[in-house]
C-alpha cells in the first residue's frame, strides 16, 4: 500500500520524536498538540455547530413496527416503559410519541 508523501514525512518525524533519549521529544509532541490535535478538535466542533444549524427538527412519522420498541420485560425503574436515556422529544413509546410533538 503506497503512502502519500505527507504521510511519509509525518512517519519519519513521529519516529524521531518517539525516541525517549532524544532531546526535545516533549517539545515535538507539545507542538503537535497545539498545531494539529487541538485545532483538529476545533474544526470538528465548528462542523458540528454548523450542521446543527442546518438541521430541520422533524422526527420521522411514527410507525408501530414490531421489531422496534421491544418490551419483553419492563425496566426496573420508573414505570418500566422508558429507557435509561429516554427523550420524549425523539424517542417514541410502543404506543407512539408521548408529547404532542410539534
Amino acid at each position, binding site marked *: 500500500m503506497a503512502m502519500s508523501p505527507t504521510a511519509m514525512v509525518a512517519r519519519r518525524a513521529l519516529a524521531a520524536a518517539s525516541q525517549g533519549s532524544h532531546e526535545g521529544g516533549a517539545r515535538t*509532541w507539545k507542538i503537535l498538540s497545539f498545531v494539529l490535535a487541538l485545532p483538529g478538535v476545533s474544526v470538528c466542533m465548528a462542523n458540528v455547530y454548523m*450542521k*446543527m444549524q442546518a438541521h430541520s427538527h422533524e422526527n420521522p412519522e411514527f410507525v408501530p413496527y414490531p*421489531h*422496534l420498541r421491544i*418490551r419483553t420485560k419492563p425496566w426496573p425503574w420508573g414505570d418500566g416503559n422508558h429507557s435509561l436515556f429516554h427523550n420524549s422529544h425523539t424517542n417514541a413509546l410502543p404506543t407512539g410519541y408521548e408529547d404532542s410533538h410539534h
Partner: protein
Amino acid sequence: MAHQAHAYHMVDPSPWPLTGAVGALLMTSGLAIWFHFHSMTLMTLGLILLLLTMYQWWRDIIREGTFQGHHTPPVQKGLRYGMILFITSEVFFFLGFFWAFYHSSLAPTPELGGCWPPTGITTLDPFEVPLLNTAVLLASGVTVTWAHHSIMEGERKQTIQSLALTIILGLYFTALQAMEYYEAPFTIADGVYGSTFFVATGFHGLHVIIGSTFLAVCFLRQIQYHFTSEHHFGFEAAAWYWHFVDVVWLFLYVSIYWWGS
C-alpha cells in the same frame, strides 16, 4: 532485620482480594435481585465494597512501590506483563461485541426488513458528533504522549499541563457521548440495532471513564512527586490503557457509526 536474597516482591498478606471478590459477588447477585425483586440494597453494598477495595488495594501498591522501593526492575517487568495481559483480555471482551454487531448486520433478518440499518431506524450522522468524538480521542492520544515525554525529560510543569489537557479531553468525550445518548432517535430497546449499538458503545464509554479516572490518579501522583524520569510505570500503564480505549473507539466509529449507517 531480615533481608531478602532476591529482587522479587513477596507481598504481605492482604484482605483486599477477598473483599474484592465478595464485592463482585454482591454486585452481581444484587443486580439479579434488583431486576426481579426491585431492591437495590445488595447491589449498592457490593458497589461500595468494590470501591473501597480498589481504593485501598491500589493505595497499598503505591505505598509498596513508590515509598518502600519494592518495585525493582524485575518486579516492574512483571507489572508490565500483567498490564499487557489485562489489556489483551479486554480486547477479547470487545471482540465479542463486534462479533455480535457483524453477525446481525452482515445478514439482516426479514424481521428487520432485510436491510441494515433496519427499517424505521434513523442512524446518527457519522460526520457530526461522532467525528468530533474521534478528533477528541485522537487529540488526547497526542497530549498523553506529550505528557510521557515530559515525564521522561523531567519537565514537571509540562507534565502537569499535558496530563490535565488529556483528562479534560476525556471528560469532553464523555459529555458529548452522554448528550448523544440522550438525543438519539433510537433506544437500546430498538431491536438488535439498539442492543449492539448501546452495549458496544456503552462498554466503551465505561472504559473511557475508567481510563480518565486512571489518568486523574496519575495527575494527582505527579503533583505529589511520585514519578521520576526513569520510573513511572503507573503513568505508562494509564497511557497504554488510554491508547487501547482510543483504538476501540476507532473500530467502533468505522464499524457501527460509519459502515453501519
